[in-house]
């Protein structure tokens, strides 16, 4: 396992006001790998992602990127190394796909420097990779959910960072588009060697697409490691309170969670 792009949390406490959302977290996310963060609703997954990306200042502890505290780095320097796609990004009114993706070049530009050929190349490449090149002049708010999500991923790609944080990139998408997005992530990792950290809901998808898995419960680390080592019936029972069997995925051999039939309906932890 490489040590470059290694994101780590040390004794991390994250709070919203007085509420402790993530407490005392020690965590290392391997560089050059795809990490999936899973856990029940309101366990602090998105908060953790905000903490890892400098959007939320830790109440205690620190977050390091290759050993350097990210809160001591300048915002721009970090933005050149790490991109983030929030769960529900705000789409500016009537902005076109290309204009949106161009904003991804923001950290690469200086106050008065003009739009460079390298900027345009990065934008074109991002559009092409995400299959949104044909949509570049379309207003984003008129796209379908899947197209819109791809446009946003294109923005993150245009930012051209080694490290990409995605907060539930597959929510609101149908199965086909979910797989499209995940395949895109896998390709990014495989071809460009990028480090990807994403929050996912579907355990099967997480097991399939991630090299490394982080399981959270109530803001604390429940388990971490390779999906095959981590994901078993006991873990699902203890974290999600669901009785299940875990079998090898017939397609990939990765763990697949099958909830038991007739199991008592376990009320989901309310958000």
């Amino acid at each position, binding site marked *: 396992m490489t040590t470059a792009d290694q994101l780590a949390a040390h004794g991390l406490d994250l709070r919203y*006001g007085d509420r402790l959302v993530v407490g005392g977290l020690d965590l290392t996310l391997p560089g050059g790998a795809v990490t999936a963060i899973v856990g029940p609703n309101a366990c602090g*997954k998105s*908060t953790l992602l905000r903490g890892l990306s400098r959007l939320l200042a830790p109440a205690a502890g620190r977050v390091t990127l290759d050993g350097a505290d990210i809160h001591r780095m300048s915002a721009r320097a970090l933005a050149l190394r790490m991109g983030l796609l929030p769960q529900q990004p705000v789409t500016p009114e009537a902005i076109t796909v290309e204009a949106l993706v161009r904003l991804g070049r923001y950290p690469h530009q200086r106050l008065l420097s003009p739009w460079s050929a390298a900027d345009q190349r990065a934008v074109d490449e991002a559009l092409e990779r995400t299959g949104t090149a044909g949509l570049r002049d379309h207003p984003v708010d008129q796209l379908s959910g899947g197209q819109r999500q791809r446009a946003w991923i294109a923005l993150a790609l245009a930012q051209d960072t080694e490290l990409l944080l995605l907060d539930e990139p597959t929510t609101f998408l149908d199965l086909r588009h979910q797989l499209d997005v995940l395949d895109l992530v896998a390709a990014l990792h495989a071809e460009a060697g990028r480090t990807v950290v994403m929050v996912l809901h579907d355990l099967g998808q997480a097991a399939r697409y991630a090299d490394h898995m982080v399981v959270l419960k109530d803001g604390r680390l429940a388990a971490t490691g390779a999906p095959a080592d981590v994901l078993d019936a006991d873990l699902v029972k203890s974290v999600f309170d669901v009785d299940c069997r875990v079998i090898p995925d017939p397609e990939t051999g990765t763990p697949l969670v099958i909830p038991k039939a007739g199991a008592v309906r376990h009320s989901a932890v309310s*958000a």
Partner: protein
Amino acid sequence: MTATHQGVPTTGAPFRAVRHLPLFLAGLAALALCVAASLALGARSVSPSTVADALFGDAHGRDALVVTGLRLPRTVIGLAVGAALGVAGAVAQAVTRNPLASPTTLGINAGAAFAVVVAIFALKLDSPAQYVWFACAGAAGAALLAQAMARRAGDIDPVRLALGGTVLQLVLLSWTSAVMLMDQRTLDDARFWLAGSVSGRSLDVLLPVLPALVLGLVIALALSPALNALALGDDTAQSLGVPVARIRLAGGVAVVLLAGAAVAVAGPVAFIGLAAPHLVRPLLGGDHRLLLPGCLIAGPLLLLAADVLGRLVIRPSELEVGIVTAFLGAPLLALLARKVTR
């Protein structure tokens, strides 16, 4: 993860008024204190026992006359105007879904002000009691115009309502200034009324607008659950079975009735309608079933406290309540705004 931030009501959540009971009681107690102070204090202070005698016993002297003849009507009018403005503000913000909105946004105060200033200019009126009907007519006219401008395909567009109303307000305000600058006597008479005041008015001024005020209050309170749904956005509200267009129209009507009645009695007191909902929200949350009753208390509280203060600071003269309200409420609003985290 979803930090329930200010102003987002939780429609599905159980109605937990009981939890806020101590706050409501504290508010009511403060209001009672203000009423007592309003009856007792002023250019000529009266002892509490004399106040009680004047109200319930058979005291006669000058002090008693001051209490029953001047301060009682003034206090009652203050209560009514404050309540009307507070509730109207909360409804206006819900209907336009804009925290910058207030009854002023719908052009109501500006319409009343323009009508009154023209009446002073053309008909040579000179006492607030004569202004009531002009203020009513002006407020209603402006409000109808603003609502008509905002109508679109049977629904009222919130952005149009806010924008159109504000534009209308600015036009009317500039006309008001023009009339006042053309004629010095009008300027002299109108500027006091324009500051907003509850002094020098008898209960006869309040009576004619009382039905409008009560009707407005009833509509507003009845609407409060639907206003919660409205805050979730039109589509969600519609899917929850809330008739969005009708609710918005009814809300607009309530605001007009309440704010129109208030401006007719007290002149344009601008700040309460804007500030009361913002002052109450950090304390009670965004649920309109709590917010509206909260404003019903906070509005008069703010107005009466300002009125009493206005009588005390430059005794024996006094400051107009509309001015003191802003002086009193602005720091409060700035302090509470600091509590807003996001």
